């Protein structure tokens, strides 16, 4: 079995719920029980109202591409077979934006504000990464 050649997420007390959600193929975000703001990255307080009252919700996994770039250079050895590859900022319906990859789409067809849906990349036994595929009309 080959070792996974790319960096993996660093799990800490703030983000462990998010990454265990990913393993279960769920995008989980914190929602403020007081003002309803859905936040990312995870935090001990709501940045909108400073409330500590928080619940975790499961996102629909649907959103739009806020912006995207195409890497033609591999800064890390693990990505050298992937170039050119796409890194994007996807805005979920619930509000938060995720730094992610766009997959299963010719690069020339990607545009800002195009609808996209989460797809799961089970990169190791313990880690699944949320990536996005355009929703075709």
């Amino acid at each position, binding site marked *: 079995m080959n070792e996974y050649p790319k960096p993996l997420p660093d799990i800490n007390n703030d983000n462990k719920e998010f990454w265990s959600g990913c393993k279960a193929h769920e995008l989980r975000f914190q929602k403020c029980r007081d003002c309803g703001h859905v936040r990312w990255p995870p935090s001990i307080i709501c940045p909108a109202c400073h409330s500590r009252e928080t619940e975790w919700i499961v996102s629909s996994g649907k959103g739009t591409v806020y912006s995207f770039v195409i890497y033609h250079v591999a*800064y890390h050895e693990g990505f050298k077979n992937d170039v050119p590859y796409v890194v994007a900022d996807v805005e979920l319906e619930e509000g938060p934006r995720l730094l992610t990859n766009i997959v299963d789409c010719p690069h020339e067809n990607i545009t800002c504000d195009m609808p996209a849906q989460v797809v799961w990349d089970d990169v190791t036994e313990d880690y699944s990464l949320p990536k996005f595929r355009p929703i075709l009309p």
Partner: protein
Amino acid sequence: MGLRDKYAIVGIGYTPQGRVPGRTALSFHVEASANAIADAGLKAKDIDGIICYRAFPSASGEGPVTPYLASQHLGLSPTYMSQDANCSRSHIQHAVGVLDSGLCRYVVLSYGHNAFSSDSMRRMLLERNGDDAAFGHFGAAAGYALAARRAMHTFRTGPETWKHIAVGQRKWANLNPVATMHQRTMTFDDYYNSGWVVEPFRLFDNCLMSDGGRAVVITSAERARDLKHHPVLIMGMGQHNPSCDVHQALHLAGPTGAKKAAETAFGMAGITVDDVDACQIYDCFTYTVEITLQDYGFFGPGEGQDWFKGGTIEPGGRMPVNTSGGQLSEAYYMGLTPLSEASMQLMGRCGDRQLGPATKTPSPEVILCSDNGGVLQTHTCTILRRS
């Protein structure tokens, strides 16, 4: 009593720059600072404040550059030392603040790095930025490229605009004997042929990685009168920091922090954008120059493409920008590339690239400078004038 014209830049320190192998980052800080002190006509014993720009990860075989290490090597024991570092863009305000509060009288502000010849930048690129690395996202170019792509979606911009910035600044570098790209010309074709790095950025949209350092000395306008050069007066300053990282930022396509920062600076200076003779804009990427000038009010969103056309920012142009070649074509010394060039221009020490008759441009009275950090997360605007 406001701060307008109360403090001044009085000395500028250079070092060998560009590709200078075999030197530590600390050695550039120390050399630049010593040269700035001497340039001002001061002695080490006069300097009682020290502020060092961000220290990048140390190269292999070097320890971190700290302000106390820099002080030790300069033989200083200052009464004020800033120990903040992380991508600070507020240093000139910091310096004025400690001078105005009486904590010290002469501040040296320095930057030094062996970015080209050491493995320091490579170490920084591979430093983790949260979990972005899991998706193959590293360094600053891609963050600014995300901002630039969003801007292309929001208003009329892209390589057709940015080529004017890359080529225009190169023309200034061709007049500057210490610019890294002094002997290399650039055409629009060269720009387009320079190859993608992180699309929509080509290689020539990116700033240089430079060995070397830069420093300035700042003191009161009153003390400045007794020193060697005509002091460069700090006319206005403003800062605004949208802070949100690129993931959540709503300011990527403007207004960035530049807008409010400039309003504050112009308010302090009591002038408008129409009074500005030239700009020295922090240019980590070409797009940064466009969005900064746009937010400063030189043109409306998407009007940059027409504004830059016809050599506006070049020698002979109506609004010279980054007259040393800037970070794209001279050398990258963080906020000190713009501040030091503005000061040299206002002191009239720029030789072939001197604003005025030598370059068929107006003789400068007022120069607008910018500095920003993170991915457009922080911004400082500084207005300098000739005394």
